[in-house]
């Protein structure tokens, strides 16, 4: 497959030749429809569209009928004048070559080539099946919007436009993929996003040379800062309110046609622990949940390794009563703590992967079978001890509390298991040190990944382990935006506004 596009062929004034150019460009065209329009036996134009992608009824009503019913309006007018005078369409685009013309046709537009003119028009009359707006399965919330992005980029753009009703919301379209010609859109709020950041995003996107972009994950991997890091430096989300919140902080979004996952950059480590609904609820419970997320991440990464380190190297740390139980349970197993944890963690990953890929009714049952039955039977058979099952199972649950870092937690979990298996607590400390070194050196589009911890940004710490009341979070992150630093009145409690109004 070619990484570079062929040269463009420009249309001429002959309708027949232009249609031949189209047919040559497309090749085998089982679903391409070329509908000639004739008046008094003379071809005046031809409609070009794909069956199943364009709304045929709309084509008939808004293009075919006006042109055929009012042929007297055609002479002496160019394509754009004809469109303005005759066609009942909302907008159109001009194209004077095969590639630009067919790119729009491939997207579901209807093209019109007029006889005697080298310019053609395409108009948006898409009629393909699309999924309705529904709650995203990967980001379920208790409170907040239940809308999620869908595969159609235009719909996604409208969802953002509905939420940010300002002329400063900018969409810049691009196309990537020499074969797929995937439409994508860079979105940002002018005046908040750093122009250098926007340019950096566009430059990185333009540097992507690939035959096809099937999902935003392709772009994520092709433009991220540290491809070898387990931590993502490009965030993604299916929720419009979450993306809007990030845009309002000065970030840049990347929407890709064909996927509901919208990318946002730059990304910080602490964002993985923040959820959109954290800001819709009162701060007390949210702070507790936020703290639980950090704790769960630590559990997910460290729990199995801690178990191996303590039982293999530092059993003096275990209280006597607990020690007797664990010691008795471990004695009947043939595998050491390290092998037991490693083996059962692998079993869990297999069961999890199987549960995802299998059909939904079967997948749930398999997960339950794998989790409960296999674990229980393994303990009864004496393969592993009960504490191992508990540790690994709890770790597995904790891993999904912080969804954005599930992959990183899985990789780190096994790395720490190996380190603690080898060197006990010393290995854990070594791994932690290396992990911290890595985190503080990571960057996302020029912004330190570990901010606001490193570099220390005291004001931003208000929204990390805990979430202070909303009226105390009025300042935009300094490292993300160039616009106004204050997004609301500075640290004024809600009742103050009423008091001052009554005083007046």
């Amino acid at each position, binding site marked *: 497959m070619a990484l570079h596009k062929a040269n463009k062929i420009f249309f001429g004034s002959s309708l027949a030749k232009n249609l031949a150019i189209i047919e040559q460009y497309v090749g085998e065209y089982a679903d391409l429809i070329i509908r000639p329009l004739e008046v008094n036996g003379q071809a005046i134009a031809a409609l070009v569209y794909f069956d199943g992608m364009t709304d045929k009824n709309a084509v008939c009503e808004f293009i075919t009928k006006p042109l055929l019913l009012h042929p007297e309006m055609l002479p002496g007018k160019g394509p754009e004048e004809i469109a303005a005078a005759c066609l009942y369409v909302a907008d159109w685009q001009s194209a004077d070559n095969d590639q630009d013309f067919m790119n729009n046709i491939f997207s579901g537009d209807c093209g019109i080539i007029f006889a005697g003119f080298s310019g053609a028009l395409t108009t948006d009359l898409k009629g393909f099946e699309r999924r309705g707006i529904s709650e995203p399965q990967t980001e379920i919330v208790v409170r907040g919007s239940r809308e999620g992005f869908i595969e159609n980029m235009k719909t996604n753009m409208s969802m953002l436009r509905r939420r940010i009703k300002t002329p400063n919301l900018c969409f810049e379209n691009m196309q990537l993929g020499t074969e797929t010609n995937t439409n994508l859109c860079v979105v940002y709020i002018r005046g908040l996003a750093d122009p250098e950041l926007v340019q950096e995003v566009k430059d990185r996107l333009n540097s992507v040379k690939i035959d096809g972009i099937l999902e935003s994950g392709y772009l994520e991997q092709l433009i991220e800062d540290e491809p070898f890091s387990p931590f993502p430096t490009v965030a993604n989300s299916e929720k419009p309110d979450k993306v809007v919140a990030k845009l309002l902080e000065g970030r840049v979004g990347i929407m890709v046609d064909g996927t509901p996952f919208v990318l946002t950059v730059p990304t910080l480590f602490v964002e993985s622990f923040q959820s959109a609904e954290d800001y819709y609820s009162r701060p007390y419970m949210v702070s507790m949940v936020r703290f639980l997320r950090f704790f769960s991440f630590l559990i997910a990464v460290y729990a199995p390794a801690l178990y191996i380190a303590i*039982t*293999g*190297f530092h*059993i*003096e740390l275990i209280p*006597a009563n607990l*020690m*007797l*139980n*664990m*010691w*008795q349970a*471990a*004695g009947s*197993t043939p595998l*050491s*703590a*390290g092998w037991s944890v490693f083996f059962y963690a692998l079993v869990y990953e297999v069961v999890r992967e199987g549960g995802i890929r299998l059909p939904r009714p079967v997948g749930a049952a398999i997960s339950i079978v794998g989790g409960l039955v296999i674990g229980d039977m393994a303990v009864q058979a004496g393969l592993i001890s009960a504490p191992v099952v508990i540790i690994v199972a709890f770790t597995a649950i904790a891993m999904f509390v912080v969804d954005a870092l599930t992959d990183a937690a899985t990789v780190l979990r096994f790395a720490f298991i190996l380190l603690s298996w080898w*060197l*006990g607590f*010393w290995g854990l400390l*070594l791994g932690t*040190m*290396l992990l911290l070194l890595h985190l503080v050196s990571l960057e996302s589009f020029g912004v330190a990944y570990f901010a606001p911890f490193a570099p220390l940004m005291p004001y931003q710490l208000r929204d990390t382990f805990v979430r202070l009341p909303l009226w105390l979070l009025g300042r935009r992150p300094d490292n993300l935006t160039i616009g106004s630093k204050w997004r609301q009145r500075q640290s004024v409690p809600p009742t103050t506004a009423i008091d001052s109004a009554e005083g007046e």
Partner: protein
Amino acid sequence: MLAGKNKAMLRIAWLNWLVLFILLLGLGGCGNTDVLDSGDMKDVELVTALAVDKPEGGAQILATVQLLNRDKALDRQYAASYYTLAAMEINLPAAIGELYHYGARQMNFSHTTVLLLGEAAADCDYWLDYALRSSEIRPTVYPIICRQQAGELMAGAAEDISLTYLLNNILEPLGSSRPGAAAITLQNFVEEMMQPGITPALPLVEQNEAGVEFAGFVLYDDAGHVAEVLTADDDAQACAGWLWLQRPKYLRGYTLELDNDVVLQVESASVQKRLQTGADVGKPDLQFRLSLRAQVLNNPQALPDAYLQTLTRQRLHDLAVAALAASRKYNLDFIGLGREVYRQQPELWEEMAEQDYLNLLTVSLEIEADIES
């Protein structure tokens, strides 16, 4: 050229990481085979008690370890849950090293609670160095001296109850996991050895028909040798006085017997010490203020609270005086008078240290007793 430069930089970055990793490993002492030879929990044998004996007339040390049977680990009050191994060598480390060849290759002392010492092996020369240097023996282990052979006591059983279990109950009453009054940890013992002005002591136990019972205290001199033994028979009041003056906060639940068959149960006790010196005082005066709160368990004659308080004060006074008298008699400051002088007035201690300060100091006692019927 740019791609080549990036490759070179990447290579340097990886090399830096590798060098840092190796440096850290080296600095961490990973060449220490203890780290690499550590055993998994399923391979270790837990030692619950270590006994040290010096057979009569011999120069060798007999080390006996009490190990837990894995299958019966949760029934540790029963003698059948344990088995013992013994080895005799020229010193304690050699004897324990010999035990590793007897099948208990992965002995682990991290949960050893009792360090039982025979009377002949009570001198610190035979056991203290090993106990302190061992990376596994915790400083919270309880050294105890027993009249008989420590190994025999450890391997014995009162019917089917393990004697070591009964011993543990003396040290941590009723499985409370809190040290009792007579439970002196290795750490406490060593701290008292290092501090001036106090004679360190360890509890003494003996086996009789009832099982294992507290039998007194063994006092050590500065060189770590046994200096004197305060027995519960001959010096019962002195032993009790030592408990009240040295370890009052561990006396919770302790029963105090008074005259007229009155029995009190201690709920809390504390002691404060204050040193008074000066021309108007005369001899340096160390004041002990002992506070006690107790509940009446038995009062057959229904004596009033005020009278009970009087009885209590009298009783505690007698115990304290007995302890002081024994301290002066044996010239062993096991109450810690010198330590209080050292703590409160180090300059005065420098003057008194080489003198017979036990007789130079006057000791006054103030007792507050709060008795609830």
